């Protein structure tokens, strides 16, 4: 695979290699953070020195459907020994799907010293690198975070409705079957959280995993990503783009690729996604 610096990304520094992580796993100014879909995985073995951030219990409000507020983020940072000056590096399973989700939540609090380890767990494993089952602990820090800022990287329901009415650009990163509305539920099981199937009118279908090389989980080159998003699907990187999936996790992976690898400056993640849109009364749907 081509070195990260040679792939033509607009912000190549947002990705770090497995070599870089191996060299910095003991660096006190760097915190490696594993975030997975399968929350059992971390305990079976992780990058030495890595801490675990659980997307359900650490990043989500435990009552409302929303993310943690400033106090919750500060407490989390204190728990994992991170200060505003700490460089955080995310990685995880499923080609960094959940790592990008955690990265995105950190951006809502302005922690910009943040990177993603290219290839995630898959690449680390394929390279035969060491796993650790030791859970590291770090001295608690005092982290003063700003209030969560949803405006830059996140878009909420009312604005999404207006954006759709204006003919805004959407990218639907779910599977083609979900996009087409043919997959709403599995046999003998009622549904997966939405009353209606289909997609937001005008949305382009670009399943999230098309941005990665499946053999090692690394991101495709800028030229390949441009071919995918711009040439084949007509996305205009100079204009606003909204990415969505089912609850905003897969689309945070696409948000990362568009924002940092292609340098599109006006990309937002609609975390309400299909579990909100597919349940809203009166909104338009295409199949």
């Amino acid at each position: 695979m081509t070195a990260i610096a040679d792939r033509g990304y607009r912000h190549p520094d947002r990705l770090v290699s497995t070599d870089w992580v191996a060299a910095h796993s003991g660096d006190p100014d760097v915190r490696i953070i594993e975030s997975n879909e399968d929350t059992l995985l971390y305990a079976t073995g992780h990058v030495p020195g890595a801490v675990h951030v659980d997307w359900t219990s650490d990043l989500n409000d435990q009552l409302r459907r929303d993310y943690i507020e400033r106090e919750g983020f500060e407490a989390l940072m204190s728990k994992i020994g991170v200060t505003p000056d700490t460089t955080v590096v995310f990685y995880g399973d499923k080609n960094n799907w959940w790592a990008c989700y955690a990265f995105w939540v950190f951006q809502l609090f302005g922690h910009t010293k943040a990177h993603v380890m290219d290839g995630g767990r898959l690449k680390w494993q394929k390279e035969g690198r060491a796993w650790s089952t030791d859970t590291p602990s770090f001295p608690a820090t005092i982290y003063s975070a700003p209030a969560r800022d949803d405006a830059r990287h996140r878009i909420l329901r009312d604005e999404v409705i207006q954006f759709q009415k204006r003919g805004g650009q959407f990218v639907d990163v779910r599977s083609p079957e979900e996009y087409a509305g043919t997959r709403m539920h599995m046999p003998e099981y009622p549904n997966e959280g939405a009353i209606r199937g289909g997609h937001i009118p005008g949305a382009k279908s670009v399943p999230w995993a098309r941005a990665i090389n499946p053999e090692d989980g690394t991101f495709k080159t800028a030229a390949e990503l441009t071919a995918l998003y711009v040439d084949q699907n007509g996305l205009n990187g100079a204009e606003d783009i909204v990415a969505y999936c089912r609850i905003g996790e897969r689309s945070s992976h696409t948000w990362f690729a568009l924002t940092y690898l292609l340098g599109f400056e006006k990309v937002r993640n609609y975390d309400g996604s299909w579990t909100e849109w597919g349940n809203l009364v009166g909104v338009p749907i295409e199949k």
Partner: protein
Amino acid sequence: MSAYPERLQALLDVFAGVTDTHERTQLLIDFARRFKDVPPEVATRPFGDDHLVKHCESEAYAWAVPNDDGTLKLHFAVENPSGVSAKALAAILDKALSGLPAAEIAKVDPEIVEKLFRQNISMGKGMGLMSMVLTVQALAKRHL
């Protein structure tokens, strides 16, 4: 009286008593470590789609083989080496249900996934795991 078979209810009771997330994780990982791949006398790779657990992202397969006494023995394969949750559930289902009559296995409800894993699974993974229970149910019904 419990709606679940005795061994399954006992396991669910154990999990119900584990409120600490770390302990629950370790318990599930212990089961995943006990996972045994389907033996070659039951099935060999490549496995047929009729035993595939649909919607399971870890590419899991399940079999229900009759014992001499008419009960069933469950077997599983999990092709994703990182499929820890799938392996844990497979080991739990084997421990709790193997050796029971098909009629009892066919009654097991996928809601046990939530009781075992709690809310700490994504919707997609939860569906895959529930689908594993439904697959076991469907396999058992073939032997009614």
